[in-house]
């Protein structure tokens, strides 16, 4: 007995001595709960039911402080000494970084924890742990800071109440923030404690945001920090453990406003559950509750090691009990997946469409919606769904599987009666089946797809490279949601061009058609091909979408490219020299103004704005009767134009800034001798028209007019006559389905030049081929003049079968006036050149060494050569060129432009 007392006394003295020694050498921990207050830099994340700025909602400054308090209490319970940089959450608590460092150093801290959580700052979401220490990764400025970080993240990573998207990351702040020039995190700079900053999770991952609202969740992180400190110092004397977990529904999907969720976070957390900690004899020890903030978190703290039972109860769920083993200095996680109590069979409590015979037919993409009294077994219920006639479709489940939505993949057939049946195999999440089948019917209307009226650019168009505009026109008003995702413009490498979203225009109720008109912010490269893709999902306000995805390829050009062989007749610099001769048809006035914003040459263009609905007479008719009325179009004239003359072997070209108003632009001529009597057919040929076509485009375009006679026939000027320019006409088509009330076009440099086309090149594509023959046939047989540029091959003033014969003669062996071929471009070249256009240097870059560059004009003539990777074009003429780049591996050619 005496011996026993003696032994006990020795043990007590030893224990006291250990405690004294431990107290003497216990570390001091400086705790910095990051941020402070509820200001703009305190990371407010808006989550239901809190409004933005509500201090009761989520703020990183709140959760950091909760974790800091928990860590402080845990460490003190273990015998550590501590300091905290703040114990409240006011703006004044947000201490300067240099102050925090000085306070830490002044406190004599051994280790320093700066407690934070992370955010992506971009729409993507993730959830993982990041720990940073000062210095490059692997070389901490203060020794062992990397070890402290590792000890912590290993303790945080075991948190199974969270859903992690990846494992932890540890880095030095110099490495992690490479753009900060090794300045690193302010709270670690000059800090002479072993120090680190923790981003414990991502507070903008919304399920995690809700968890961080929970005090127990934050406590567990603080507790895990303390375990990390124990690991760092090699302590294991504290005899307590903790258990926490997440309680979720075992099958109900979580409804979270389209927020991104991962793993088990896709199931509903169970709020307001009672969690009872019991010993193994079912005697309750402690009770806690999950809150009502959609996180399902519970925790029991400071437990003695041993086995326990945890029972979870919630009125709408079957209760569940699990056995856990608590270890000293460890966190135990025990999640629960509860099954709902579902005691009645499922039934349809609401549905759509509700339709009866005699009701108006429904649109061809009407979804079928069933709402149930229970959350349903999705697989069984989808199998119980039948629709006649059969149509392919997709199911979507909403409201935690209480609502099923069926949508046809494409569309139902038009004018068809459909019958939908849900048979008795449909069952709820508890396995009970429907007692009665459910049936509904509906009939579809005539309309199935969104119809396209027009798209600009058209397939194969040539579009001015600057300030381009794209437009989709449809038969009904477009759905204005997410259309930027459905209408995409890409360059040859597949890179999306940017839009000027602010100036995007869309159709509205009352407009004659639906449209979206998007200015392109990016400048394109002349000569390069671009692709406009409009997704099938582009739909109207009724949800009717396109029948298929539309892809238009077009080429960027410089409409203002210099035309050295042409003479400028009119620059349109002074609007005051123009007057409106007549405006008839609808009694409304037009205006002629100078425009200094949209111009190609000089300082101004001529802007013509005119009302064009209700319609005028048809253009050709109007011209035929111009002597009487001039009715049918606006006519503008100027002194300069009226004095200009052109020879019969010349042609007119005009720069037009279009607005896709479908009006026609023409220039009216009369021969200077005007020798034919008015009553004779020859009079018609003395009054030809240069027709620049329909304005079915946006932006600048360089157009060479087609000669047309008052009869409507396409022809040529008489090479033996001289003509004077009388006026510019603008008219519209009464039959046009596009009822645009106002149109605004702009004109810049009107040029005259010798007809430069290749003899026999009917369609003006630069060479003579069988395509020209086809163009002539289409014109003569069908009146299709779309490909007729120079149809009068033999120059007799008319297009006839004689012209076809003339082309055959050319093709059978006479001259071909094609320019010399340009250097060939090698596909898949690694060489890049730019800028395009350029005013001083064109630079070439490549994976390999560039030996030299050569510049050719478009006729294939060598203009300049340089032994480096650049070409000085500062003194070269504006225009298009070919740059040939020689590398050690390849020779490649590139279309470039010079513009000063």
């Amino acid at each position, binding site marked *: 007995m005496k011996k026993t007392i003696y032994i006990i006394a020795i043990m007590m003295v030893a224990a006291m001595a250990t405690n004294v020694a431990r107290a003497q050498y216990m*570390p001091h921990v400086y705790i910095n709960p*990051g941020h402070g207050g509820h200001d703009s830099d305190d990371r407010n994340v808006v989550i239901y039911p809190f409004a933005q700025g509500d201090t009761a909602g989520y703020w990183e400054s709140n959760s950091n402080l909760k974790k800091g308090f928990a860590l402080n209490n845990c460490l003190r319970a273990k015998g550590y000494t501590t300091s905290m*940089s703040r114990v409240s959450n006011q703006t004044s608590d*947000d*201490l300067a970084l240099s102050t925090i460092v000085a306070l830490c150093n002044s406190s004599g801290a051994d280790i320093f924890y700066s407690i934070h959580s992370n955010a992506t700052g971009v729409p993507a979401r993730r959830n993982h742990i990041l720990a940073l220490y000062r210095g490059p990764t692997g070389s901490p400025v203060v020794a062992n800071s990397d070890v402290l970080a590792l000890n912590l993240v290993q303790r945080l990573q075991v948190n199974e109440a969270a859903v992690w998207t990846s494992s932890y990351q540890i880095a030095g702040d110099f490495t992690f923030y490479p753009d*900060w*020039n090794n300045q690193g995190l*302010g709270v670690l700079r000059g800090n*002479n404690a072993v120090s680190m900053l923790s981003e414990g999770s991502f507070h903008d991952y919304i399920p995690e945001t809700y968890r961080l609202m929970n005090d127990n969740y934050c406590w567990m992180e603080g507790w895990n920090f303390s375990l990390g400190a124990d690991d*760092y110092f090699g302590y294991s004397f504290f005899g307590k453990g903790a258990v926490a977990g997440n309680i979720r529904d075992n099958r109900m999907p979580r409804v979270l406003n389209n927020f991104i969720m991962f793993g088990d976070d896709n199931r509903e957390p169970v709020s307001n559950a009672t969690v009872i900690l019991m010993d193994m004899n079912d005697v309750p020890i402690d009770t806690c509750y999950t809150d009502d903030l959609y996180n399902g978190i519970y925790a029991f703290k400071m437990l003695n090691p041993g086995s326990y039972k945890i029972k979870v109860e919630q009125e709408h769920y079957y209760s569940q009990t699990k056995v856990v083993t608590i270890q000293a200095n460890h966190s135990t996680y025990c999640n629960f997946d509860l099954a709902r109590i579902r005691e009645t069979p499922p039934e349809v409590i609401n549905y759509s469409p509700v339709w009866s015979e005699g009701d108006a037919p429904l649109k061809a993409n009407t979804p079928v919606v069933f709402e149930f009294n229970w959350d349903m077994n999705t697989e069984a219920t989808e199998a119980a769904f039948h629709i006649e006639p059969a149509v392919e479709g997709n199911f979507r489940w909403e409201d935690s599987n209480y609502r099923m939505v069926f949508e046809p993949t494409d569309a139902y057939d038009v004018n068809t009666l459909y019958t939908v049946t849900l048979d008795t195999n449909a069952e709820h999440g508890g396995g009970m089946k429907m007692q009665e089948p459910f049936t509904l019917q509906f009939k579809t209307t005539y309309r199935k797809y969104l119809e396209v009226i027009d798209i600009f650019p058209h397939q194969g168009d040539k579009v001015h490279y600057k300030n381009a505009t794209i437009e989709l026109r449809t038969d009904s008003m477009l759905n204005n949601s997410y259309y930027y995702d459905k209408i995409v413009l890409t360059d040859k490498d597949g890179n999306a061009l940017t839009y000027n979203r602010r100036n995007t225009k869309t159709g509205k109720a009352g407009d004659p058609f639906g449209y979206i008109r998007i200015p392109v912010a990016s400048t394109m490269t002349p000569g390069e091909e671009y692709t406009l893709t409009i997704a099938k999902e582009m739909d109207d306000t009724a949800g009717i979408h396109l029948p298929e995805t539309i892809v238009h390829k077009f080429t960027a050009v410089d409409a203002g490219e210099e035309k050295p062989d042409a003479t400028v007749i009119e620059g349109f610099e002074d609007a005051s020299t123009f007057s409106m001769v007549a405006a008839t048809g609808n009694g409304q006035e037009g205006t002629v103004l100078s425009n200094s914003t949209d111009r190609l040459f000089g300082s101004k263009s001529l802007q013509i704005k005119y009302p064009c609905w209700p319609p005028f007479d048809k253009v050709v008719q109007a011209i035929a009767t111009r002597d009487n009325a001039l009715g049918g179009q606006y006519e503008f004239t100027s002194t300069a134009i009226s004095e200009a003359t052109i020879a019969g072997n010349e042609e007119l070209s005009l720069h037009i800034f279009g607005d896709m108003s479908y009006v026609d632009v023409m220039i009216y001529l009369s021969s200077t001798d005007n020798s034919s009597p008015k009553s004779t057919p020859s009079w018609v040929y003395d009054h030809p028209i240069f027709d620049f076509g329909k304005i079915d485009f946006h932006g600048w375009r360089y157009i060479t007019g087609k000669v047309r006679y008052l009869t409507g026939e396409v022809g040529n000027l008489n090479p033996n006559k001289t003509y004077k320019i009388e006026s510019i006409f603008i008219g519209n088509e009464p039959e046009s389905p596009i009822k645009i009330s106002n149109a605004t076009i702009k004109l810049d440099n009107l040029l005259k030049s010798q007809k430069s086309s290749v003899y026999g090149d009917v369609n003006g594509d630069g060479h003579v081929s069988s395509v020209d023959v086809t163009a002539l046939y289409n014109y003569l047989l069908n009146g299709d003049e779309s490909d007729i540029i120079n149809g009068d091959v033999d120059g007799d003033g008319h297009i006839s079968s004689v012209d076809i014969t003339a082309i055959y003669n050319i093709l059978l062996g006479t001259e071909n006036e094609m320019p010399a071929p340009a250097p060939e471009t090698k596909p898949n070249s690694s060489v890049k050149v730019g800028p395009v256009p350029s005013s001083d240097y064109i630079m070439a870059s490549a994976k390999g060494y560039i030996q030299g560059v050569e510049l050719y004009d478009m006729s294939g003539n060598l203009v300049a050569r340089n032994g480096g990777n650049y070409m000085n074009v500062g003194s070269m003429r504006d225009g298009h060129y070919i740059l040939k780049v020689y590398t050690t591996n390849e020779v490649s050619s590139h279309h470039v432009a010079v513009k000063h």
Partner: protein
Amino acid sequence: MKRSLLLIMGLLALIASGQQVRVTSSTQLLRDVEPAFYPTLSPNGELLLYSDADAHGLKMLDLTTNKVTNISFENGAGFDAKWSPDGKVYYVTSMVDEKSRLVYRTGKCYDLSSQTSDVVLKAQHGAIHTEVGTQGIALNGTKEKFSSKPNRGISVYTEKSEIVVAINGKEHRYSPVESYAGYLWPSVSPAGDKIAFFAAGKGIVVIDLEGQVLAELGNYEMPCWYNNDYIVAQNASDDGYQFTSSQILLLKADGTFKHELTAKTSMTMQPTCGGEKIVYTTIDGLLTMITIEIND
């Protein structure tokens, strides 16, 4: 109401005071030599202590000869080095003990005449607070202390949220303003009649030797006495991770005048005063010395 009136009176005083401040010279130090941080001017302004961004090591620049002397290569040496009235340099180094992983701190003294450093306070665990007095200096460790003189005249140091004022060896502890996180950067004015310090969450506070608040100068940091009436301080802001602005201010110790010596965007910080000179550094360690003229 009373507070509002005081605020208005303060503003009026600020407007009426009419001080003009002119920077009369500006010189870059150690240009193209090395980045320098934690500058500390000697009382006569002829010598400058500095360190690197992490306060590793301690160097001394002789401003009359531009000669640089290495004082220490140890961790933490540069963070809070002080000049004693007798012209010696006192500093504290820190090291992590490999076995216990605790941080131990050692007090050292550098003698300019012998150009050697001696340990004056052996390595110990916990904080060491440096107490600077008008006649001597002390290093107050948690376990042991060192004093250069038994009577350090009027001296001051901070410990948590207390400022400790010793007058001829008798200590007085004051907590004149509330600050949970603590006090920092205490110093006695050149005439020995005022004390400036920083209270976390409050800013710079000026008190008399009895602990009575004379003025609260605003939420600025690192005060140093330019002369007995003016204080130079740092005004920095951050986003919780890194500095977003920092500038040097001249403040009148009675709170009636404030002047921006540098712009907020200059990222200038860590000011020190001595011999009517002001030295500060930048976020990337560019040292600048300026002289100013104040027309009261």
